[in-house]
């Protein structure tokens, strides 16, 4: 049984450097798992589906690479499989889409929230346009550089940074008004 370790963000950079060079998939996955599942939740609405996506992506990635030096490729793999997952089961996607449209509250939470302000912030993140939300998720909770984000999404580094700034601007505006 694996225990999930929470990252201390003060040491996040150092931890990620260690993870990037570590060859044990369990260590890598224990560090990246929560962020990967959160990233997959950009496309699938349930945690179970997101975990299926992450499982498939991580296995494929690890079989070819045996390390996570190329994090951009790992996230690109998750993204591609998540999109493929939706296409594979269009009825499921439609059902999820309908469910989302009907009641936003029924969506499983993505964060371990401690108070109402965090709930509001999480809701504001959910309300971002998809292309901005995925950049924010990769930057904030996965600690990818804009260069890595650009590689993963197939966009330029400047575009990634621009989307990030737009997203934070919108969040700041919405969050203050809440």
């Amino acid at each position, binding site marked *: 049984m694996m225990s999930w370790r929470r990252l201390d963000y003060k040491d996040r950079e150092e931890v990620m450097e260690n993870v990037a060079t570590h060859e044990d998939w369990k260590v890598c996955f224990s560090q990246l798992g929560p962020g990967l599942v959160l990233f997959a939740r950009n496309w699938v609405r349930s945690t179970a589906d997101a975990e299926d996506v992450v499982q498939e992506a991580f296995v494929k990635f690890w*079989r070819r690479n045996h390390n996570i030096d190329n994090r951009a490729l790992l996230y690109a793999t998750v993204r591609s499989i998540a999109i493929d997952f939706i296409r594979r089961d269009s009825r499921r996607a439609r059902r999820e889409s309908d469910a989302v449209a009907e009641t936003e509250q029924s969506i499983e939470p993505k964060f371990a929230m401690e108070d109402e302000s*965090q709930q509001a912030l999480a809701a504001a*993140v959910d309300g971002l346009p998809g292309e901005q939300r995925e950049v924010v998720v990769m930057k904030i909770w996965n600690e990818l550089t804009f260069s890595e984000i650009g590689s993963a999404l197939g966009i330029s580094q400047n575009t990634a940074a621009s989307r990030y700034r737009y997203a*934070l601007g919108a969040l700041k505006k919405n969050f203050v008004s809440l």
Partner: protein
Amino acid sequence: MNDFSELEGQLKKLRPLPPSENLAERIERALAEPTSTMSTAGILPRAARLRINWLSLGVSLAAAAVLLLFARFGVDRPVKKTPTIASGTPSSIVPLASNASEFVPVGLTQVVYHTSDEGLHYATGSEQPVRRLRSHTRETCQWRNPTTGATICVSYPSEEVSLIPVSGQ
């Protein structure tokens, strides 16, 4: 970007929910499975594809064209400096070693990789012009011992000059 530092700090305080406990076990089982059952989803590096070397293809086609040209004018060639082994068929290749019964010729290839047209010339004592074609080839002969399966392969460059009579019109 500094305007957002406070907001970034608040966002980082949000902790993503950890995956379920059995996800790592599922991944471990999946990693233990044979790879052939997995699809690629078009993301991971694919197997190397056969690449066409256009230069080689062009040279080969040119060589084929030159060979056809030789075949057409072959009967008219007044001079032919052709090595014995280059013009022979596999069955006519001289066995390599003294124990000839052990190695039998199995192949002979001649690849023309460069040809040049050196223009019209007048051979000594002749009033009829001839076109001189120079071709560089690589010939490869192969012998095989049917008993042991051992093969011997010899490859060497060669140069051939062809004089093609030209009739004035």
